[in-house]
């Protein structure tokens, strides 16, 4: 009895404290206090959509489009890699994009990576080997910030998993550089600060990255695909999906095998359950 009495008193006390000291002032503020200020940039943000038709790896049966991944790699190499690292990916991984061993050797050698002079022990640079990881574009974070108006370009290895709906986010961000609606901007006094760029798909719409894909044909694709801005954005978003999760397609294929087996095993388990219990269940009617 005393436990119950104590419980009732404690319960009423907690509720009273909550209602009178937290809820009541909150409701009063909400009703009579100043309205919460919203950043003017909220009015300009638009949720980004993916490329038309989606990606080849979308869905439960999705597969890589290797030609697209190779084009995306080319965009990374010729555009993004000037500022963005890819530190969790090694050149050897490129073989998964459909390159032969010899092509990977040649591709690795086209990059310059930090090395040690075997004769003097001095730090130097050398051509990359398949076992090397993609090199960092800046020697350190301070250098990266200094070269980019104080914003450090993030590593791209995991970018599509580090943002909600990442593949579509990367695509929409790369194609989201527009001008704010001038009428609306004048009305709320919105202006993009100097050194930043307006991008309607970036959460606070002012991004430090200059439009990386500025003109059609910025990259000359080896396979002759017309390099429009949406095409380049789609390709590099696909490539970055692969860098974030190289096992994506293998994972889905393994999943079908596992679930197929489990369905079979579960049906057997259900039948054995029904058979064992058959004699026990009351007959209907």
């Amino acid at each position, binding site marked *: 009895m005393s436990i*119950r009495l104590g*419980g*009732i008193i404690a319960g009423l006390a907690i509720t009273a404290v*909550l209602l009178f000291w937290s*809820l009541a002032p909150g*409701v009063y503020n909400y009703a009579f206090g100043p309205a919460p200020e919203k950043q003017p940039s909220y009015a300009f943000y638009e949720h980004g959509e993916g490329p038309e038709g989606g990606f080849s790896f979308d869905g439960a049966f999705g597969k890589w489009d290797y030609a697209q991944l190779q084009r995306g790699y080319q965009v990374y190499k010729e555009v993004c890699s000037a500022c963005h690292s890819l530190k969790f990916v090694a050149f050897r991984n490129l073989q998964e994009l459909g390159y032969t061993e010899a092509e990977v050797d040649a591709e690795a050698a086209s990059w310059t990576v930090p090395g040690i002079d075997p004769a003097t022990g001095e730090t130097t640079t050398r051509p990359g080997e398949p076992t090397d990881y993609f090199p960092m574009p800046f020697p350190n974070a301070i250098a990266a910030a200094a070269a980019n108006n104080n914003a450090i370009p993030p590593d791209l*290895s995991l970018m599509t998993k*580090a943002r909600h709906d990442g593949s579509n986010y990367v695509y929409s961000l790369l194609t989201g550089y527009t001008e704010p609606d001038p009428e609306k901007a004048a009305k709320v006094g919105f202006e993009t600060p100097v050194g930043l760029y307006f991008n309607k798909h970036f959460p606070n719409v002012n991004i430090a990255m200059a439009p990386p894909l500025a003109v059609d044909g910025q990259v000359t694709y080896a396979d002759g695909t017309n390099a429009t801005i949406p095409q380049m954005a789609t390709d590099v978003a696909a490539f970055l999906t692969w860098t974030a999760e190289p096992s994506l397609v293998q994972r889905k294929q393994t999943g079908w095998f596992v679930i197929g087996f489990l369905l079979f095993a579960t049906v057997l388990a259900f039948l054995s359950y029904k058979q064992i219990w058959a004699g026990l269940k009351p007959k209907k009617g």
Partner: protein
Amino acid sequence: MSFAWAKQYEPQTALTKWLDDKLPLPRLVYSAVGAGYPVPRNLNYMWNFGVLAGFCLMIQIVTGVVLAMHYAANATVAFGTVEHIMRNVNYGWMLRYAHANGASFFFIVIYMHIFRGLFYSSYKAPREMIWLLGVVIFLLMMATAFMGYVLPWGQMSFWGAQVITGLFSAIPLVGEPLQVWLLGGFAPDNAALNRFFSLHFLMPFVIAGVVILHIWALHIPGSSNPTGVEVKQESDTVPFHPYYTTKDGFGLGVFLILFTTMVFFLPNALGHPDNYIEANPLSTPAHIVPEWYFWPFYAILRAFTGDLSIPFTGIVLIPAKLLGVIAMFGSILLWFILPWLDKSPVRSGHYRPLFRKFFWFGLIPTMIALFICGGAPAEEPYVVISQIATAYYFLHFLVILPIISQIEVPKALPFSITEAVLGNSKAAEAPRATGVVGGGDAGSLPDGSLQPAE
């Protein structure tokens, strides 16, 4: 323990006879989860979740031990070794996704298990000890899951560790030194990561130990059942094997299909994207949220927005942060006195019309509201909703349950489990075991005094 009609293990071969003499391990298994454990014949699918929880613990231990072979608990490389597991370890991605989603499914299963216990009042005499040990397991699980989430050393790992250990700083006088002592520094860093890894490895085995006590305590009175009427006779029970091994086997199959669907097709759906950004003490995420299974308790923590002060004097008695911390821990700790708060002699919610209304239309919507608010940013209307829901949560357990257990008129209970399953007439014909009452351990047999409302 167990009932008089429980079958005894009989070794057949020379080897098993020899083993039974020296170390009767097969006998223990036979009596615990074999044909020697009589179980009520009317258990529904809600009784599958105990076995499933045990299975989840095994998944976590097996995948976790292998992951630990490839992981390094050092703040400079931890994030990279997780990526090493994802990219270079054979089927490392599968191990890691199974472990991360395994934690989520462990909590889904455990919440079903707990709320089954709440609806059928499984915490009532003579099963209080099972319930108390279960609450201990739940608390250990929460600690283990929290520390495990820190190990990948992503942004949410780091800031989650900062926020959760920061809760201890709300304790008066010793709070700040306590937080520094827990973290081994002023902010989460290598010292914190190392000890969290060590404890995260240790705790599952502590949980396994308490699980053994939980099952031991279960075997004293035997399993409860959906009618809440205690076992009276042999026809009320069936042997655990093969009856419930096959039923649990089917339940396990359904569970594994759902689990593997998440692991192979939506492995990151239950996680936060920010945890794929390496921990950065200089950049605070926009919204720091814990894993989804902590959201209801996180909502209770954040519901207290005002200090408890003497009006018009500005004297603060208890700061809001401390109120929130007390309420959050209190919301789980009150489960420890639940068997003594709800004194209704009827167990099952099916026979308690008033209790059932408050359960389905009070407690369950409240938990859903707290869940949603805990995952939402701290702005209106979520704050007000979480405050009302928190108030109801405490009123439900501490005020409403004791009162309805006094005033409620329960429905008529069936005489026995057999009658509930087969109907009145057939129950009389059902085969009954000899020596129905009496014999066996006195504490284990239904002695009538435990029978509700007869």
